[in-house]
């Protein structure tokens, strides 16, 4: 197999907020294996906001439908918190409709990524959505 001889110069740090352990695990595994990124995970919106403020990740993947504080409430909280409002948020959802898409945009989400995602190319999607690949 080919070996990446160049170690990435700019290792990204990603926070995955999802109440489902399987999604957290697959997203985390996928980004570590394919991009060698550092990944933090949170199982709830409240935990996610705390980790985001403390760790200052480069981007946040946020599940929309979660019990308790759901994804949109979490997004509002991230946007109003001065420690986290600069961090780009990508929403993760299994279903998305035109109307809700507009709502997500108004709330400041950078993009919506559909679940199920391809574990082989999740990192590429994030890079392209956030134009990291051009940097």
């Amino acid at each position, binding site marked *: 197999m*080919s*070996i990446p001889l160049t170690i990435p110069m700019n290792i990204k740090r990603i926070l995955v907020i999802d109440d489902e352990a399987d999604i957290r695990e697959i997203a985390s595994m*996928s980004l570590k294996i*394919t991009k060698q990124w550092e990944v933090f995970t949170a199982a709830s919106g409240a935990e996610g906001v705390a980790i985001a403020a403390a760790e200052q990740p480069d981007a946040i993947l946020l599940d929309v439908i979660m019990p308790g504080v759901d994804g949109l409430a979490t997004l509002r909280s991230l946007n109003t918190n001065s420690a986290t409002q600069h961090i780009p948020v990508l929403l993760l959802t299994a279903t998305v409709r035109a109307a809700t898409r507009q709502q997500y945009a108004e709330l400041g989400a950078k993009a919506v990524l559909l679940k199920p995602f391809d574990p082989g190319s*999740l990192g590429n999607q994030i890079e392209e959505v956030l134009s990291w690949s051009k940097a």
Partner: protein
Amino acid sequence: MRILLVEDDDILSQILTDHLTTQHYVVDTAGDGVTGFNYAQAVAYDLIVLDVNLPQLDGIQLCQRLRQSRYTAPILLLTAKGESSDKVMGLDAGADDYVVKPCTVEEISARMRALLRRPNLVGSPVLTWGNLCLDPVMCEVTCDGQPLSLSPKEYSLLELFLRNPQRTFSSGSILEHLWSFEDAPSEETIRSHIKRLRRKLKASGNDDMIDTVYGMGYRLKSAFPLSVPTSSAQPKLFPSATDEQGSKFIASPSAENEARATAIALWQQFKQPMLDRIALLNRAMVALESGNLSDPIRQDAAHAAHKLAGSIAMFGFPAATQLGRDLEQLLQFPDPSLTHFKKLLDELQDILQSPIQETFFGLQQPSDPITQPYLLVIDDDTVFTQQLQTEGNLGNPIKVTSDLTEAQLLLVTDLPGVILIDLAFLQSSEDGTAFLEELREQFSRIPLVGLSYPDNFVNRLAGIRLGCDRLIAKSTPLHEILAMMQDVLNQYATRPIKVLAVDDDPVILEQLNQCLPLQGIHLTVVNTPDAFWYRLEATQPDLVILDVEMPAVSGIELCQVIRSDRTWGSLPILFLTARQEPEVISQLYKAGADDYVSKPFTESEIVTRILNRLARNRLLQQAHSTI
């Protein structure tokens, strides 16, 4: 749209096919009910048109059978009688609509369009996307009122996407929908059609209307993309695989596949939560059956369906995603259809019980060709070899030669599973020593069994010195010799050895990559300890190579983590180290190392250490299993 027409009247069948083809439908025809049923089982049709009077299996029976097999596509019945009993029986059998013959082909095609529109739950017969309109009646596409000229296949592709805006179509499913059996093209042709369609759409101002979903296929982009209020550059919501942009770190295709394979491997870990979600759906169905479907139960079930739809495909069950979405959609209504619910749930449960489909997201598992390893016998004793060939009931084939040159050729062209060699013959041969040297050097993985005659210590020692792995007296009964061969074949089963190497030094990894695959060793490398555990689970290696000093997590710590695990605790671990201090070496063994190799190392050194370690491990396992 792909249609199945089951009609025994050849003339009507031809007229209808011709008409539907001009409407850009792809039509398959069957002349009797049994053929129709077989076609429907083989291909995902968008709609089936059935004549009631059919030979072998009539239209109503066929309809019943299709519905019993959980066929969900719409079915339109054609009946010549016009009797209400036929209509009632047809509808009860699961048909969605009927047309009474005689009728015009236009009427049939109008009913078909109506049925095809149903899932959209939208009254308008015109399909729209932004400023683009597709009129299925006129077979016309317009953009801002201006006609857009598309070829029939481009038109059909666009219609397929517009009718199924949420669905991702793989090349295979596009092929199934838009081509008949006879003219099925390659996937490359489908890509060309998509490319041409995209070009025309782009020219009409509808850039990026069709998304490429990595590893899955194509789907219609939402007509109302998310706007980004602050960023100067508009990011792509669903990046296209065809976009070519540079990346600082490009995951190799193998890393992508490994991530996909790892996700599938995680199924065992997450199976139970998935089954719990299924249980919630079953609970709702039972409640619905008994007329007690409360809102909380229904909402729990809808939530479970939503969660299933979002993750199940990643574990290798792609077909389950749409079923999850359909169930979620169905459970939005306070009084969902029990039949529909049951059908979807049954189908979902069937899928989860079927083998995992590892081809999802383009994952291709390297498949090892299944070949029966053979026994190569090198001996000029024709009585012995003939007896071996005629009486030997070894499950594996046997090849015999008394010519060392021929043996060499066989080794190069068709690797044997085990070699049985007469030591006396070898020692008497002029090229015997050179042959053995080459054998040991180039084919060290093939087990070598020496026949000792006369059987004494001196000859056995000579056998060991010649490099034999096992020795047996030639006078041993034939069945015992064969039993030993079988044993060796099983023990040394020549499946590829898998090695996982962790080192932060890319030069070392490259060096391993240069030498191990040449020896038939499959190598997976990890350059940060962080991804190690996933790769361990995904690759299931036979041996792990660890660097001692790495940032964040040292090799010694990794070794301790492996040793403390129930599954991986006995995995052979080999260290690579530039450190020679006794205290460092002692630390390695203390942490659970099996062996270490000093850096810099030679190819033969590392290969020999790996093979020795694995051989020792096999012996240990064997000894353990016989206790």
